[in-house]
């Protein structure tokens, strides 16, 4: 798909986005690289989840999209417009992580205030307020001071203000953070209603379960990088990475290394097979069975969990076992959960960063 085609349907387009926070002292620079060339794309009608641990750069990415901060490299656009421009912002509804509404407001006066900031006239604000207060379940409590609101009610009020000007894109930053299960459920229900209404939603969260429940697409971030992005259905499968890698669990046996039968040479041969298996895989490990009870006494059992680049790599591993006079006992393709995928990606990123 060409860039123009992509941008015609994409709501959010981020390309090699970088952000470095300058810090430290004059003598000792302490720059923080919050984003290191992030690229992703969210299309119209998607509920796009941004998943990552604390410090992954999720909020920084959202701030850049909203124009709260400026990027130091790359480019980001909303609706094909430069991110942060007034025109782009006028089409975005935003719910901050922990919404703070001035204490002198009621729900209705807060909606009136934020509606005016979105350049709505009083009549529109009045009509929209009624609808949204009903949508978020605050009807009947709209004249109460926000001082008496629970956190869940505040978040629902936040959702209402984000929707006040009927935006084309809704950016929700940790919408259920700090809420009790009931509150989470209430907020999630509203998001699901918006999703069903066809709104494009960009949701930032570190709660995997929430993302799995409401998102159609996902990007996983860690250390300022996007580690994976795509439909959530693919993100949860064993071979669902964007490079089509295949995770397999395998058990096989090789000739046993017995000294009476020239064990030294067999042992050396088995070790070479192990190395060749690992080299064929993207990553993984091979372990020798310590207890060969069910195996022929002259053969040694191995169990391995491998991530292979493709099916040919799996075939190559099987061929190598067979060529070493081994036999395949079990080969099971392994389907990863979202959490496993997330953890695997995050850990590998951490290890890469450490190395």
């Amino acid at each position, binding site marked *: 798909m060409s860039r123009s085609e992509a941008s015609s349907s994409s709501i959010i387009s981020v390309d090699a986005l970088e952000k470095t*926070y300058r810090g430290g002292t004059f003598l000792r620079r302490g720059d923080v690289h919050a984003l290191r060339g992030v690229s992703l794309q969210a299309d119209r009608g998607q509920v796009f989840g941004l998943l990552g641990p604390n410090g992954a750069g999720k909020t920084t990415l959202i*701030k850049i999209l*909203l*124009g*709260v*901060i*400026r990027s130091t490299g790359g480019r980001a656009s909303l609706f094909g417009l430069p991110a942060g421009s*007034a*025109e782009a*912002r*006028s089409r*975005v509804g*935003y719910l*901050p*992580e*922990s*919404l*703070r*509404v*001035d*204490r*002198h407001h009621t729900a209705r006066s807060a909606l009136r*205030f*934020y509606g*005016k*900031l*979105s*350049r709505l*006239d009083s009549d529109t604000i009045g009509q929209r307020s009624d609808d949204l207060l009903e949508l978020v379940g605050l009807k009947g409590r709209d004249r109460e001071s926000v001082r008496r609101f629970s956190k869940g009610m505040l978040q629902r009020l*936040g959702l209402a*203000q984000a929707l006040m000007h009927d935006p084309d894109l809704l*950016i929700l*930053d940790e919408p259920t953070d700090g809420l009790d299960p009931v509150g989470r459920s209430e907020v999630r229900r509203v998001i699901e209603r918006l999703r069903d209404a066809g709104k494009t939603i960009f949701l930032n969260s570190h709660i995997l379960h929430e993302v799995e429940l409401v998102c159609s697409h996902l990007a996983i971030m860690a250390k300022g990088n996007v580690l994976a992005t795509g439909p959530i259905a693919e993100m949860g499968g064993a071979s669902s990475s964007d490079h089509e890698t295949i995770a397999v669990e395998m058990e096989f046996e090789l000739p046993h290394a017995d000294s009476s039968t020239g064990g030294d040479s067999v042992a050396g041969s088995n070790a070479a097979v192990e190395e060749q298996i690992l080299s064929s895989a993207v990553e993984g490990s091979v372990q020798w069975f310590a207890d060969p009870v069910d195996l022929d006494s002259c053969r040694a059992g191995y169990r391995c969990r491998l991530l292979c680049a493709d099916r040919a790599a799996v075939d190559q591993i099987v061929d190598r076992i067979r060529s070493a006079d081994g036999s395949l006992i079990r080969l099971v393709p392994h389907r990863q959960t979202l959490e496993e995928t997330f953890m695997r990606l995050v850990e590998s990123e951490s290890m890469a960063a450490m190395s």
Partner: protein
Amino acid sequence: MRPYLAIISDSFHSALASRVLWAAFLAIWVLLASLAPIGIREDYTTSFRWFDVYNGTRMKALLAQGIVDPDSQETAIGRVANAMPDEMKRQLRRVGEGDEVRIRLSLLTNALNDLIESDATKEAESKSDSVDDDPNASNEASVDNPNPDQQAEENVGDEPALKEQSELDGASDEQDSADDAASDWYDAEAWESTVRLRELRSLDETPDEELSESLRRRRARLRIEAALPGVFESRSSRSVLLTYAGLEFPTDFQIDRVQFETLFNQFVIPILVNWLLGLVLVFLGVLVTASIVPDMLQTGSLHLLLSKPISRSALLISKFIGGCAFVLLCVSQLVVGLYLIAAFRLGVWNTRILWCIPVAVVIFAVFYSVSVLAGLKWRSAIISIAAAGALAAICVVVGVVGGVVDARVVAPDRIIGISTAGDELFGVTGGSGLVRLDPSAQKWEPLIESEAGSNDRVLRPAALDDDHVMTARIRNGRFNPFGSGSLDLIVLSRDEQWQPQPSLRLPTATERLLMVDDDTVLAINTADLLTTERAAVLEAIGVEDTGDDNDEENGTDGNADGDSPAARIDSSVGAWLKALVTMQGGATESFVSILPSDVVLSPPTRVAKVLGERSLVLLTGDRIQRLEPTGSGSKGTWKTTVRENVAGESERASHVMAASSRWVVVARGDLPVKIYDAATLDLVGVWDADLRKSIVSGTPLELVAVSEDLFLLRTSSGHCDVIEIIDSGEVFASSEPSDDAKGDTDVTASAMTIRRVARVPVDEVESMYWKADAEEAGRGTLYVVHDIDRVSKYSLLMPDSASELSESAGDSDVRLQLTKSVVPAGSVWRWVDRYVVGGLELFTPQVLQLGDTTAAMVSGNDSLVIGGGESGAAEVVRYQIAWPLISCSIFIAVVLAISCVYFSRSDY
């Protein structure tokens, strides 16, 4: 605009939700409620206060003379003196006998007030008695005897008490006689020889029955004032008394309505603005609003705001305006409340008071802008408040440093009066010093050292000739015309390198020296006009006068008129009485009074020499008169050739006057400038005050006649203008009161008015001196000292010579041509003042000076003149109106611009 109006409104509501705000509101309401019962009551000025006494020494001497001088016993002063309490009389007698007796002014005024009281009581009793005897008696009396003075005279004549009092030592019932004397001190015949104000004459002509008690007291006070001429300050006939909930304040402070309004507008309101609004409310406002920006910067609030399609700078400015709007609400309540109290309770309907609202908001905005910047940087309300407090401290420190440097360095160097002798220029400094401009070194060379905060008074020098200048230094004379110590004329001689040399003994309380002609020196003091010969002055320093003179003729003229008070005294009384006369400011051995016997100087007094003539115009009390010598010598009493009444001239001081051979121009405060015909002293025109202010702002400080129609006018705004008397082409109707046959009927004539023909092109004129060309009338040189001590010299080019100028464009036909300008070298401290203090003031918002702006806006004047008179030592407070506003506005704009840039470029 809708989003930004919403932010302003939201900020306002946010502040409105603050409890501190409601505490402020409560405090304002309590303050207004506590001020609301304040009111004023207006009544006649009847009693004397110590500060009514202009010349206490003279009062003491007059009263002493009234007691000890046998010839004065039956005069007005004698009757007043002898009616005083015994203890006071004993002290006054000792004064008369030459002892040094200190009598507190308040004791003297209390004794006089007792006389007023006794007079009023006596009148009331007599009225009561007559009513008891015959209810119709008063009516009959008024019908039978329309002249109450005559009636009073008869009553007094029946009373033996005064004679008993005059023979005090032999009195058997001293207390009774004293009481009688106290109540019968007035005698119409004795008062016939006094100079009575028009108000007193009118009251004397009114039957007692028609006078209220207040008016009778007023009459008694005026009679005492007439008996003690030259003693009291001029006071308005009516005074205001402050009341609270209908009760009078227990204070002696009595002022007239005009003074009250001046005091209220120029002191009370600015002080309220500076302290109540500028300090209390502004910092209360900072306390309340300091959290607006840090609250906005909280993550959940800021990111949401920034996600909206609004400009960051506009968001910040809207928040700023929201905070200011909140303060506007508080200040408006207070100022409108004060305005209403002033209007309804004090009768001061001055809508200019409402100017305090924007000024207070500007003061707040200065501090709030810093608070906003600190809030943006540190996101803490506490630090925001601290930053505003730090700015306030800086402003106060810079203000105090500026004030101290100004008082200690600049003020003593300020040239407040100049004069020339030949080609030499002399100046009197604000530090009571005398300086000469050294043309070679281009600096002012001190002849009498200036001293910061000096209480001395140095008279403006007057040139005896091209080589001699006279002046005088009156120790502690700044606030007391008498000063302390002996008073000698000082002569500076070219031959002695202009070093001061003591010359003749000057009359006490001398306020001004001038040359009437080449040979006659005139000394004007609080009570008299006295002359001596130039030769005598020079002789006293050992210089033989080689000029053409007619000493012999002068000698024969001297004392020729036996009516002169000094002459009378010289010929008839002993040395002890001479001393008393000297105390009163009368003649000395060398100076002889020229004042006609029927003229008494009553402050405020102004004397102007008629340009090109040997005559004087004297304005004193409510009369203007022209004095001319009876002979050609320097001695001898002069005669009054013309005398006219002037309306209201006695009500307030600080008038200035100048006389040409055609016109006498009198300017008094902010009232219309009056033009009198110099020959007849008829009022022939006025220069409307509003019209004048639109052309020449400020209060007139100095008037000098240049030619028949041209005058120089220096005003408190720091400008000097050339004005011309012109025919307005309209008929002038005058209602000036008159004693002569013309009566009070209107006089119609072609009205004269004034137009400005040129302005000296400098703004900070400190003093000026017109040196007329001896050979050609109307020609001369104008010396102007401006910007503390700079000197500019101008030639006045008249219509015939104006064509000589190449740049003859313009509609004015009189030109000022700058011929020389001198910027004298200053001291190191002046450099420090100019560059260090000036620099600090440049970069510091002039918040403290906004009090000046308020005073100017509320009063409608750009300056305040304190004092004045013949000594010309008026203190001028020139309000800085535009500069503090500009300074504060620039500061606010710069700080807000920095804040906007910071806010726009920062990551949050």
